[in-house]
């Protein structure tokens, strides 16, 4: 890549500038320029790796700050947005006592307005509480871990697939039976795995890759006691994820792939699941097989 090239005007010949690759990642090019970049990337694997990393960074940034949206808004900000002022004390007193006609009018107006604003605030709070139920913390972490490590061309995993102890090691560390799922029927080969921090505990990430170098990750962790078994789908920008909890283990399958592909992979994983009795948890109860009952 010629870094000094400033030809971003879309002239038909010549190398593609870094700025143009960057604009391509952000979807800012017209169709003609887009086609040129695509042709260029086809012949320049290094640039292909670069835009792949940039794209993953874009995704990682988004994931990183996404949880802020679910936080409850501090009351000070709600007040600032609705410019809530408590009605003056004299007005309240006058309205309550009804002693002065003018006082009652002014004060009553103040109270009414104040109540209107309270209503707007409560609506906003409610909306937030609903939104907060949509994704759990660990699912966000699974998505984030995905974005970080799929972008790594050479250090995507800590332990490679060939090493026999991968499954044993991860099983011991996260206290959940870790099986190296075989996704070859779906065209995905195991790259390897890594151990990750997961809130106060630990989790494991397995990475798979297909012939087009597309990667998916499986995130495994020990769920909190009493987490209900459920099978859900969420889409965050280009990245989709199926996640489910069974007795003894929480799973999230993450990838920038069509929902159908992710579903097929999830079903393959589910079918190969280690019975819980083999591992730490003693129950062999199996929840209903995954179906396309995405929450979104």
């Amino acid at each position, binding site marked *: 890549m010629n870094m000094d090239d400033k030809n971003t005007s879309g002239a038909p010949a010549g190398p593609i500038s870094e700025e143009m690759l960057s*604009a391509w990642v952000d979807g800012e090019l017209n169709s003609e320029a887009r086609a040129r970049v695509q042709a260029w990337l086809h012949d320049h694997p290094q640039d292909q790796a670069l835009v792949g990393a*940039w794209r993953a960074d874009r995704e990682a940034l988004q994931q990183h700050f996404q949880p802020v949206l679910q936080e409850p808004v501090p009351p*000070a900000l709600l007040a*600032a947005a609705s410019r809530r002022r408590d009605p003056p004390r004299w007005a309240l007193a006058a309205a309550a006592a009804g002693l002065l006609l003018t006082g009652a009018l002014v004060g009553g107006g103040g109270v009414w307005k104040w109540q209107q604003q309270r209503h707007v605030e409560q609506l906003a709070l409610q909306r*937030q509480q609903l939104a907060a139920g949509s994704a759990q*913390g660990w699912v966000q972490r699974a998505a984030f871990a995905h974005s970080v490590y799929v972008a790594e061309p050479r250090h995507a995993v800590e332990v490679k697939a060939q090493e026999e102890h991968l499954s044993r090691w991860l099983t011991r560390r996260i206290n959940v039976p870790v099986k190296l799922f075989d996704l070859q029927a779906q065209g995905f080969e195991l790259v390897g795995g890594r151990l990750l*921090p997961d809130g106060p505990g630990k989790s494991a990430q397995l990475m798979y890759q297909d012939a087009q170098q597309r990667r998916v990750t499986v995130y495994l962790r020990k769920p909190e006691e009493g987490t209900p078994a459920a099978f859900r789908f969420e889409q965050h920008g280009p990245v989709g994820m199926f996640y489910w909890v069974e007795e003894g283990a929480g799973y999230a399958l993450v990838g920038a792939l069509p929902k159908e592909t992710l579903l097929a992979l999830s079903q393959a994983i589910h079918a190969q699941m280690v019975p819980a009795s083999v591992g730490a948890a003693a129950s062999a109860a199996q929840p209903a097989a995954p179906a396309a009952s995405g929450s979104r």
Partner: protein
Amino acid sequence: MDAPPAFCRQLLDVIPRLRRYTRALTFDPAAADDLSQQALERALAHWRQFDPQREMGVWLLSIAHNAHLDTIRRESRVSVTDPADLQRVQDDRQADNSHTPGLRLDLEAALARLPAEQRQPLLLVCVEQLSYAEVAAVMRIPIGTVMSRVCRGRAAMRQFLDGHSQAARPPSVTQLKRVV
């Protein structure tokens, strides 16, 4: 005359987004909420300037952006990329193990090392998903400048994440003591 209720409702709706952007700008939840509050107050005071054809979120982000610039100018000795302060923020985070410290810090640390003029457009594009044209309007710079700053910002960030941080680290670390 106070802002109409419809305006206030729209404003309330975009607070979470405003908080996300200010958090990404400052890395510090308390400072971020101060900035958000300033932006909301300004928005309310100037509600007549809001063009209902425009998107409230983008309008509010541009107000927050300007408020942030004012803060930087006013406290010109305070650097948002102050490494000493960043370390404190990181320590706080590590104590709070509901997050995944190892992962978060890499990204935030890399982001923090970018000059503000690159970090802002990069965040607006990647996190807020604004188009280059919208970023140009928010930052009041030409689209071509947005394009090159986003590119330089993400290239530098990737280098930091790849571990080539030594060469690009700001040389004047000790001068950046926070004075508050």
